[in-house]
């Protein structure tokens, strides 16, 4: 009995994760192309996607390395982009925190925007799922998404090797980030955070080592958090 319900939870996860394949494939391919255009080999590009498995952070690191920012700043900025993973981890914990350590470690590696968003929505809609079903569902959502991230990074890298480096791809990262940020501007707090960060970043452009980006991002976060707190006080 239990094993069939776990299996069907896994299959339900695959179904709910599948629509993201349409987003992940071109996105991974873009990373592969840009990384090889920036001078990375196919092996280095694929390693990047397998080891890090986080789109926005990978694009950030690539952009800053191309701008010759110091290594520490590259790492700090890309990790700052990934801070949201800690939030995902925290909000998944009540649901899958009871699973065995090895499963939790594997789940942690596969905690990405898509698997988190789909799983948390499901757990809230179906609170009577057992812990085994929840973790199986989580791995289901990962199955169509994450292998595609690796495979299409590889395809992109192979394509990128074939394209001449003079193709004006320098602007692909800013365009990609704009396309990611725009739908995320759902509330006044998100909009306030984004506008603050953009303005601060322009003001702090001359700060050495590209540190202005990190400072501006932190300023944006603080404004977002402040607006959220004020909105909550106003409505409660």
């Amino acid at each position, binding site marked *: 009995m239990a094993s069939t319900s776990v299996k069907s939870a896994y299959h339900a996860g695959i179904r709910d994760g599948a629509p993201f394949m349409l987003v992940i494939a071109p*996105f991974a391919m873009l990373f592969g192309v840009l990384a090889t255009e*920036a001078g990375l080999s196919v092996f280095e590009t694929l390693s990047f996607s397998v*080891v*890090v498995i986080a789109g926005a952070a990978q694009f950030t690191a690539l952009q800053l390395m191309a701008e010759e920012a110091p290594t520490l700043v590259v790492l700090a900025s890309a990790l700052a982009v990934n801070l949201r993973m*800690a939030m995902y981890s925290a909000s998944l914990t009540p649901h899958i925190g009871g699973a065995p350590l090895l499963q939790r470690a594997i789940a942690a590696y596969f905690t990405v925007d898509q698997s988190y968003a789909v799983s948390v929505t499901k757990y809230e809609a179906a609170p009577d799922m057992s812990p085994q079903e929840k973790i199986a569902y989580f791995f289901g959502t990962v199955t169509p998404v994450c292998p595609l991230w690796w495979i299409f990074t590889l395809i992109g890298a192979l394509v990128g090797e074939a394209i001449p480096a003079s193709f004006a791809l320098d*602007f692909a990262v800013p365009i990609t980030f704009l396309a990611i940020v725009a739908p995320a501007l759902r509330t006044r707090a998100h909009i306030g955070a984004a506008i603050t960060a953009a303005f601060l970043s322009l003001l702090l*452009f001359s700060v050495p080592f590209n540190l202005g980006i990190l400072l501006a991002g*932190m300023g*944006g976060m603080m404004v977002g958090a402040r607006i959220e707190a004020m909105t909550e006080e106003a409505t409660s």
Partner: protein
Amino acid sequence: MIDKTELWIVIIGLGIGSFALRFAFTGLVGDRQLPIWLMRHLRYTAVGILPAIIAPAVLWPAATNGDFDIPRVSAAIITLTLGLIWKNVVGSIIGGGATLYILQFLLS
């Protein structure tokens, strides 16, 4: 050109750091609740850091040695507008990219 040693430090460091962030709570903290103020700040990391990277890259692109560039700024505006209205990431990227190439072709 990206230095190979730096590249591998970034790949491995980012891999370890990202895993640590993802494992921090699921793996180590258990099911204790995080302080509200911390969750509140973490929610705005993406909409904070990404615009900070975008803004100077749009207005002062490295490819033009920092000169204001009409095709790039137009492409940015189109991408943002498409994303705000349509909420389709891949569609917005294609729209912005098309704008960039068409204007570069027309203005060259």
